């Protein structure tokens, strides 16, 4: 058995492998989620399929562990590496634990991006956030202004006075207030994400500001409690409750009219955008700070210095689409 024969065999195998890669007509993109069976991620998979249908030559592999553990995701990633997928788009259960496995994938030429819940910088090429603080801040003010014809008193009902997310969103919301000269932000109160305290604070707002037109609650507990308080006070139609909430939780409030519209990310768009980004990276787009990568119907993602991008404004939910989304998440 000469060295020559060995070398020939190796070359032959290599040729076969390369030929296989070339013959694979479909681009395989794996959508790895935190766990299977969660409505939010099922919806994201639906979006990924929409993107695949639009692109034509994409096969979506929707997968994930059965419970939300990093260990389970690592197994899934290893299986995907063995399958030889072209891209992995992951919503991670742990930003650091899955990074080594994803690095192995990248070493083998697999495109890796994270979306929704990010992976540490070294474990992915880019991360897609559903939205950004500035976009959220703008959206919650816009939703309030839209339904009061741009004029009137509004108040913010937040979570605790120390909630980082809410405080950043409120700060961003205050920055865009000058764009709405007739919207008068009269107070910011804190319901501590407790249903009873939020309810009481909403009652307090209604009692203190008789001309109040809208309550903005960028927290799921707060928006529900405020809707209930407005309903119980018989002020549906006078005061609109808006902010950030989940369709499954807000369906009742939208139905009763206490909330005309509210916002949160759209998981379908998120799955769609993640697929589009993966596809474009496979086809040669460069993930580098400042780069702008197209996301199909949604626009383009502009990467910041950490290779992170924000998808879009939060999606607005109202009577027209709540029925479709309330069973999703």
């Amino acid at each position, binding site marked *: 058995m000469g060295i020559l024969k060995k070398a020939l065999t190796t070359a032959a195998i290599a040729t076969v492998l390369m030929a296989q890669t070339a013959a694979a007509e479909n681009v395989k993109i794996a959508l790895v989620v935190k766990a299977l069976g969660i409505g939010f991620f099922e919806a994201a998979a639906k979006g990924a399929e929409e993107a695949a249908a639009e692109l034509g030559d994409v096969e979506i592999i929707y997968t994930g562990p059965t419970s939300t553990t990093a260990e389970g995701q690592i197994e899934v990633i290893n299986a995907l590496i063995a399958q030889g997928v072209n891209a992995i788009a992951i919503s991670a259960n742990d930003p650091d634990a899955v990074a080594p496995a994803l690095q192995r994938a990248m070493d083998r030429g697999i495109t890796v991006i994270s979306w929704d819940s990010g992976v540490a910088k070294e474990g992915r090429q880019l991360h897609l956030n559903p939205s950004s603080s500035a976009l959220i801040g703008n959206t919650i003010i816009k939703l309030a202004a839209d339904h009061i014809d741009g004029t009137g008193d509004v108040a913010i009902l937040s979570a605790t006075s120390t909630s980082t997310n809410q405080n950043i969103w409120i700060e961003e919301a205050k920055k865009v207030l000058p764009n709405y000269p007739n919207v008068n932000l009269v107070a910011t109160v804190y319901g501590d*994400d407790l*249903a009873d305290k939020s*309810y009481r604070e909403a*009652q307090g707002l209604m009692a203190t500001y008789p001309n109040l037109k809208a309550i903005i609650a960028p927290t799921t507990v707060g928006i529900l409690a405020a*809707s209930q308080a407005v309903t*119980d006070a018989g002020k549906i139609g006078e005061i609109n409750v808006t902010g950030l909430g989940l369709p*499954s*939780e807000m369906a009742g409030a939208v139905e009763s009219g206490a909330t005309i519209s509210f916002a949160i990310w759209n998981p379908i768009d998120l799955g769609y955008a993640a697929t589009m980004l993966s596809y474009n990276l496979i086809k040669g787009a460069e993930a580098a700070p400042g780069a702008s990568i197209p996301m199909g119907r949604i626009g383009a993602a502009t990467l910041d210095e950490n290779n992170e991008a924000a998808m879009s404004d939060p999606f607005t939910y109202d009577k027209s689409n709540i029925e479709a989304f309330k069973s999703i998440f």
Partner: protein
Amino acid sequence: MSLLKSREALLALAILLLIGVVAARFPAFVRPANLANVLNDTSPLIILAIGQMIVILTKCIDLSVAANLALCGMVAALMNGAGVPLPLILMGVVALGAGLGAVNGVLVWKLGIPSIVVTLGTMTIFRGTIFLITDGKWVNAHQMSDGFKALPRTVLLGLPVMSWMAIALIILFTVVLTRTALGRSFYAVGGNPHAAVYAGINVGRTQFSAFVISGALAGLAGYLWVARYAVAYVDIAGGFELDVVAACVIGGVAIAGGAGTVAGAVLGALFLGVIKNALPVVGISPFWQMAISGAAIVLAVTFNATQARAPGRIILKSAEAR
């Protein structure tokens, strides 16, 4: 004994004073409709405070009331979702609450574990159970039937049913504690356990009864809470057990057991209720709100410690003189 020396009268006076101060800044606060609203809002706290007071009377404490409330509330919401009629739900949650209270009671009675440890443990277990039966999912307004949500809100003779329930329970337990053997045994067990044993009272079983009552009331409050806020999830009424204990302490219920009245606990709850409802309308910074609630509790306890020391009665005067 003059009226002013009565602790309850003093507390009632303090509440009136508080309402007066609030009214000076926000006159609409004293409108009858708003005061009725405050009473209604405080009803769950009143109901829980009555149960807690009975437990504290027996030298125990029940830290699991809020978790019990949350679990029973969630079960009520789930039963409603399964189409169980409302009267059955009400009976079900009261029975479940009593059962959960009985778990506390048995551990305290039969194993002699200090109640603070037992209820600290069951508090976590109850919350964990909610997570187990729901996977952390919420039950929301549109998943509850209208009848389920409407009962606490239905107005009878000017007050919502929730307020009437609290009032009925205040009357019921005032009678129980002052006029029945069980009621008096709560005082006896807490006041002097040894003497209670000599009087033929089973200390452990009396404490068990107290936990069952507290649990049953928490179960009822669980339904009221969930129906009122039209939402049920793992963390509802988080930290509420501390408000309940605070209401008792402010109401002059002795933490060492044996002393306290239903009226005191109710007034303590109302005192907190007025503060909670007043703070959002008087425009005090949220950063101060917790400090103010806390200061009220410390003041009340200080007041307790200095005022409530009734001097012992000398019953053998001639013997002492010698």
